[in-house]
């Protein structure tokens, strides 16, 4: 049963019970009062009639037959009231009377006690009173009756009218309750609809909030939950997609050099090759084997970074930049490039080896992008971070080939290479910037890129934990 139907049924039952119980009591007491009055009236009339009869008998001649005297008195007193009277002897035999006699209604009680009953005769109702009375030294029974059909009918009419009114009130009440309940449970149905849609996978589905009451609150809470769930799901989907992309790229990067190594080795062992081709094949095996080695080293660095926390200790920023400059000087000289390194001195809490790898990679990337004769700038400045703590920013700027805008946001994706064939020639597995970003992240920082194709690139590495 639906909640709305339950509420309607419950309210209707309560309404009906209280209305009928209350109404029944009121109407019944009204009817009872009316009949009670009739009975009392009949008794009082009987009392009066008894006294009148005795008085009339006193005026009769005492020598006469008592029965005759009583008959006469009865005749004289018949005009009294709206009742019809009968007189019976000691044995209950009807002596005289007007209208219908009710000998079976004669009382067994002592003299002076009046007994009154209401009888139904077909469609008619009659009130009958009876008593024993002492007349002319004998005991007679009297009954007096009156038709009260009108009075009883009226009482029944009241009852019927009450029933009609009650039915009307009940119907109206039920209609009103139905409307009210439907109106009240509308938010619940809305919530149910929203929840169903959500569970069917329509994660963007939300519940329209109408009210400030508990249900409105529930809807709002649900929406909040749906929002955060949707966010989590899309995060998970992103992670799964990245994982899938990573696996696919990794398989490609692994299998490509393997194909050369296996293929050339297979060719060497199966074919009689001229000496020149033999050397060429061996060289391919060597260089592609080296490529595999680079790949495995970069991957191991990356995995190590993800697995264990860096060993943080204080180091001097200027010192780090100088060390990187020194270790790259040979390569830079060979490429005909000049490195300008200007770093503000600062005490940084970091893992110095990782920061050096970061700077080395960024400068080496700049080297690969630059034409001979160019200048690469490595700068370092102290910064104040959003939370008020000290930070440090390294920027590496080159004036080389630049990066197309559509490639900028993919730079840190594993195995992404802007120009694959160029990257291959200069050696690289497409993991350098992925590693750099990870290093920046474990130091509470980030990596940002700005580039104009043809003019050069600036990479900015923000790092936390610096003090002057």
């Amino acid at each position: 049963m639906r909640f709305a139907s339950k509420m309607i049924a419950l309210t209707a039952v309560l309404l009906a019970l209280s209305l009928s119980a209350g109404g029944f009591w009121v109407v019944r007491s009204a009817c009872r009062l009316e009949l009670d009055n009739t009975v009392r009236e009949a008794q009082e009339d009987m009392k009066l009639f008894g006294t009148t009869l005795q008085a009339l008998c006193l005026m009769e001649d005492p020598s006469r037959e008592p029965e005759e005297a009583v008959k006469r008195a009865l005749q004289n007193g018949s005009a009294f009231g709206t009742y019809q009277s009968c007189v019976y002897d000691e044995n209950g035999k009807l002596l005289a009377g007007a209208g219908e006699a009710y000998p079976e209604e004669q009382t067994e009680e002592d003299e002076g006690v009046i007994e009154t009953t209401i009888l139904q005769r077909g469609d008619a109702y009659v009130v009958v009173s009876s008593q024993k009375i002492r007349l002319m030294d004998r005991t007679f029974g009297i009954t007096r009756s009156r038709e009260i059909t009108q009075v009883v009918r009226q009482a029944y009419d009241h009852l019927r009218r009450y029933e009609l009114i009650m039915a009307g009130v009940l119907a109206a009440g039920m209609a009103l309750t139905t409307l009210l309940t439907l109106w009240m449970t509308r938010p619940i149905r809305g919530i149910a609809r929203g929840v169903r849609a959500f569970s069917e996978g329509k994660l963007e589905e939300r519940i329209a909030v109408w009210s400030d009451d508990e249900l409105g609150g529930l809807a709002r809470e649900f929406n909040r939950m749906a929002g955060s769930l949707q966010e989590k799901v899309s995060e998970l989907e992103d992670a799964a997609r990245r994982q899938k992309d990573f696996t696919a790229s990794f398989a490609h990067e692994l299998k490509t050099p393997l194909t050369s190594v296996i293929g050339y080795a297979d060719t060497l062992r199966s074919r009689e090759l001229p000496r020149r081709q033999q050397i060429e094949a061996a060289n391919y095996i060597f260089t592609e084997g080296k490529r595999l080695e680079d790949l495995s080293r970069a991957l191991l660095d990356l995995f190590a970074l993800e697995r264990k926390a860096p060993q943080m200790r204080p180091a001097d920023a200027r010192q780090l930049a100088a060390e990187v400059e020194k270790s790259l000087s040979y390569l830079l000289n060979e490429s005909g490039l000049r490195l300008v390194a200007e770093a503000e001195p600062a005490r940084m809490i970091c893992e110095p080896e990782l920061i050096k790898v970061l700077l080395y990679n960024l400068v080496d990337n700049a080297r690969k992008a630059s034409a001979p004769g160019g200048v690469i700038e490595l700068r370092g400045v102290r910064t104040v971070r959003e939370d008020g703590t000290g930070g440090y920013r390294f920027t590496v700027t080159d004036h080389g080939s630049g990066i197309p805008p559509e490639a900028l946001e993919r730079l840190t994706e594993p195995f992404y290479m802007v120009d694959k064939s160029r990257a291959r020639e200069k050696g690289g597995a497409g993991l350098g910037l992925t590693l750099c970003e990870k290093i920046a992240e474990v130091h509470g920082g980030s990596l940002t890129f700005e580039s104009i194709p043809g003019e050069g690139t600036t990479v900015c590495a923000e790092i936390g934990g610096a003090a002057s």
Partner: protein
Amino acid sequence: MIKILIVEDEKPIANLIDWNLTGCGYHCECVYDGREAADRIEENEYDLILLDIMLPGVDGFELMEQIRPTRTPVIFITARGAVEDRVKGLRAGADDYLVKPFEIVELTARVESVLRRAGKTQERYEIGDVVIEPRSMTVTKGGEPVTLTYKEYELLLLFLRNRGIALYRETIYQRVWGGEMDPDTRTLDLHVQRLRKKLGWQKQLVSIYKVGYRLEG
């Protein structure tokens, strides 16, 4: 001569395929990116295209759209070996699939089988006075028909398709006997001896110590 286009952005791999197919008597051309491949396909007609899927510029699936109307057979070369990738490749209209890394014998076998299905296989092989016509499965020596068992014929075809290549015992067992034979048994040697005798190939079928056999000539 059968013309094969090799589309592969990894120069070492393109070169590797080129060497080996050229060694089998095919004429090969190499291109290293999708756009250039599209130009070549438009300008020339090839008997077979070996196509890498992950290409810079235009990728393998896009190139497929261009190749399909020409009805040139295509073998996809890819590092993605998952079943759904293969199905996707075959749906796109590839005739076969070569998953990196691959062995040379696998490469030549797939090339040969795709060419055969496309009806572009070499009509006949001639070595000395021995003539083999795969279409009609006939072998003649000096004009006289030579009777071979099925396995002897299969073995002969394997040697013919890999002329100048040393075939390792395990490779031969895998290709001819479906790998169900123990490589140490004498079955292979007995078959080779019978081929030598029936075709007079004592010199051409060279046995390589501890490796296998090679057909020269």
